[in-house]
């Protein structure tokens, strides 16, 4: 065992940021939502903007995000977070505003609000957690569910002919002049989590410069919805989700 004296304040290299509250997260074991929350909270912490940040929670597993982020937050109707954030940012232009949305929320019912906020170039950050499934309601097919992937509403696998194709919202919004920074990341390894954090930080900095909409997709797992252990889910994600949703920057400000 390490000598006890290592554990002393001056040696501290990593601890939970105080921008996350001390509430126990309600997420399933190994769910990427928690890590994604922390990365975003650390960015708010490091930029010193806790008092200037307003978040918008979606309807989805992260509906209670407002219990964990220690910033002022609003809970939006399913899919409408970008409209709610528009209402906030337009009337509070000096604040840092973000939405945090799942793939059902953002890419199904919220398609129009997402696309139009991005098209108007609303000056806020959209964090998009793509886990290929409706986690909260019990594992139904999402717009991003992969071809052949099973869910409670595609029990024999997603049949693209009848159920449609996985929707790459991130690539679509990158086409819009209103978006300034569009990237796809993950949080399932330390390296990826750190990259995500850097992306989120950049996004907040662009927001300060009023550069337009920043859109950070985080491809994530849903062990419960996918009916896998966390480890299996991360492996499955690497092998199946990443080829379809390749990680990396899609659009960076010129």
């Amino acid at each position: 065992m390490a000598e006890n004296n290592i554990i002393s304040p001056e040696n501290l290299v990593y601890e939970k940021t105080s921008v996350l509250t001390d509430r126990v997260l309600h997420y399933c074991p190994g769910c990427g939502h928690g890590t994604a929350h922390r990365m975003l909270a650390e960015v708010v912490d490091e930029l010193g903007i806790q008092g200037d940040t307003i978040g918008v929670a979606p309807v989805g597993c992260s509906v209670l995000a407002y219990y964990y982020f220690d910033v002022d937050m609003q809970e939006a109707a399913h899919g409408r977070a970008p409209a709610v954030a528009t209402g906030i940012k337009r009337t509070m232009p000096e604040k840092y505003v973000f939405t945090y949305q799942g793939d059902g929320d953002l890419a199904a019912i919220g398609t129009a609000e997402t696309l139009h906020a991005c098209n108007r170039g609303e000056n806020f950050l959209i964090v998009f957690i793509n886990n290929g499934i409706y986690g909260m309601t019990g594992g139904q097919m999402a717009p991003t569910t992969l071809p052949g992937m099973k869910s409670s509403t595609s029990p024999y696998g997603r049949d693209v002919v009848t159920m449609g194709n996985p929707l790459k919202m991130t690539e679509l919004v990158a086409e819009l002049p209103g978006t300034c920074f569009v990237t796809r990341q993950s949080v399932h390894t330390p390296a990826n989590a750190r990259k995500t954090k850097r992306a989120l930080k950049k996004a907040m900095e662009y927001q300060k410069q009023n550069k337009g909409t920043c859109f950070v997709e985080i491809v994530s797992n849903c062990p419960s919805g996918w009916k896998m252990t966390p480890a299996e889910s991360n492996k499955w994600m690497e092998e199946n989700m990443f080829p379809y949703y390749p990680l990396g920057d899609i659009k960076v400000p010129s």
Partner: protein
Amino acid sequence: MTEEIIIAGFGGQGVLSMGQILCYGGVMQGKEVSWMPSYGPEMRGGTANCTAIISNQQISSPVLTEFDTAIVLNQPSLDKFEEAVKPGGLLIYEVNGMTRKPERTDISIFSIPAYDMSVKMNNTKVFNMIVIGGFLKVRPVIELENVIKGLEKVLPERYHHLIKLNEEAIHKGMDIVKEESAAV
């Protein structure tokens, strides 16, 4: 005859299907039944419970606040439902993982070490059938033959080879259920 039962425990303990098996058994025996799950917050984890009612008459309310029998499989469930047993009613608890014993003196209390038995049987999946056995021993509201018939309905065809094993588990449960205190 009306038996109003609450079954409560962790999500993975087969709580919901216990209630369903009892109800299906009731149907096979020509009784009126109702089963109502707790469908928790739209989120993961936590405890689960269901209300199962088996009766000779039409069932008015599927949702109850008092029960003839409470079958509790973990501590939070004991804490929550001990008080909800009607005076003179029955409480069956799984001994494993309880940090305290039931305290009521006006009800019959039985314990059942179903988890240990399931480990002994080398199949923790039959855990809930052992508990059912214990319950049926104390309250023979449904005949075993009808419970098995119900099981046949609940289980998909491809699992029917497991029915024998389940029957065995029920018998084991009948054997090991034990009266803890006989109040009333």
